């Protein structure tokens, strides 16, 4: 466990903030803490740092390994890791769009569900280059890329 002092941003004259970072089992969890220099840690508020990225990478790897040989959309999009990535919600949008731009992985279904929109026109269906361009433009227009 490591501790990073953020004493330049005290929440009050009495407390200093810091981040305690714990890595375990391949995942990383950080806790924002408020420190009274005169005493012990007074309060911790758990929040995720890089957890969305690590979850995305972990599940992307498994999804690709398990479904790269499959064509059926049901099999590809209902894979537990793909569903898990959708479940990460809005915080994963930027990560997905960057991955789409870099590798053209099939995130179109996930993007539709998370973003609640679909910039892909029916005439682009099945054309991965055109679909990618449509989503990248959407990401740029909305400040994700």
């Amino acid at each position, binding site marked *: 466990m490591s501790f990073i002092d953020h004493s330049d941003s005290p929440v009050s004259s009495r407390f200093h903030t810091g981040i305690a970072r714990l890595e375990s089992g391949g995942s990383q969890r950080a806790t924002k803490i408020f420190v009274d220099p005169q005493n012990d840690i007074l309060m911790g508020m758990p929040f995720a740092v890089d957890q969305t990225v690590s979850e995305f990478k972990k599940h992307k790897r498994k999804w690709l390994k398990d*479904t*790269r*040989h*499959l*064509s*059926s*959309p*049901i*099999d*590809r*999009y209902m894979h537990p890791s793909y569903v898990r990535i959708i479940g990460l919600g809005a915080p994963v949008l930027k990560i997905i769009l960057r991955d789409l731009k870099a590798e*053209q*992985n*099939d995130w*179109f*279904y996930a993007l*539709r569900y998370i973003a609640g929109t*679909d910039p*892909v026109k*029916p005439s682009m*269906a*099945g*054309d*991965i*280059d055109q*679909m990618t361009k449509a989503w990248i433009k959407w990401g740029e227009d909305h400040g994700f890329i």
Partner: protein
Amino acid sequence: MAVRTTRLKKSNHFPRLAKKSNKVTSNPDKSYNCIAYAVGRTDKKIWPSHHPDHYWPPGIDRGNGDDLAGLLNLFASHGYVRCVDAAYVEGVEKVAIYTLASGRPTHAARQIGANRWASKLGEWYDIEHSEKAVSGGDYGEIAIFMQRQRPA
């Protein structure tokens, strides 16, 4: 571009895939899938589902979207009719449609010779393989054979 892998190994996905029974003929390509490859296209992913991510030719009934009906209609539109087996006949081109036990389609392969078939494995490789090589796992079993006169 050189193909990096020459043969695929047996796996849980392809439990009947002996190394000697297949040959990789392309690098992975996300632009097309098995159905597109079976009908001779490498520019789009084709599937009868209602997901807007997949192309479906206009005017072809896609059935319920994820059953055999749509694929039968698609291959029929390319001149295929149902036939009984995988026997190789000179001048005839056959396709095999794979389904799970539930009847849900998973894959299609195109015959290229006696006990030789060509498949695009999802977004992965194009391979040549024997009739049974990619069945028995994630693709289920061959449910339907269709044939047409081989185009000149």
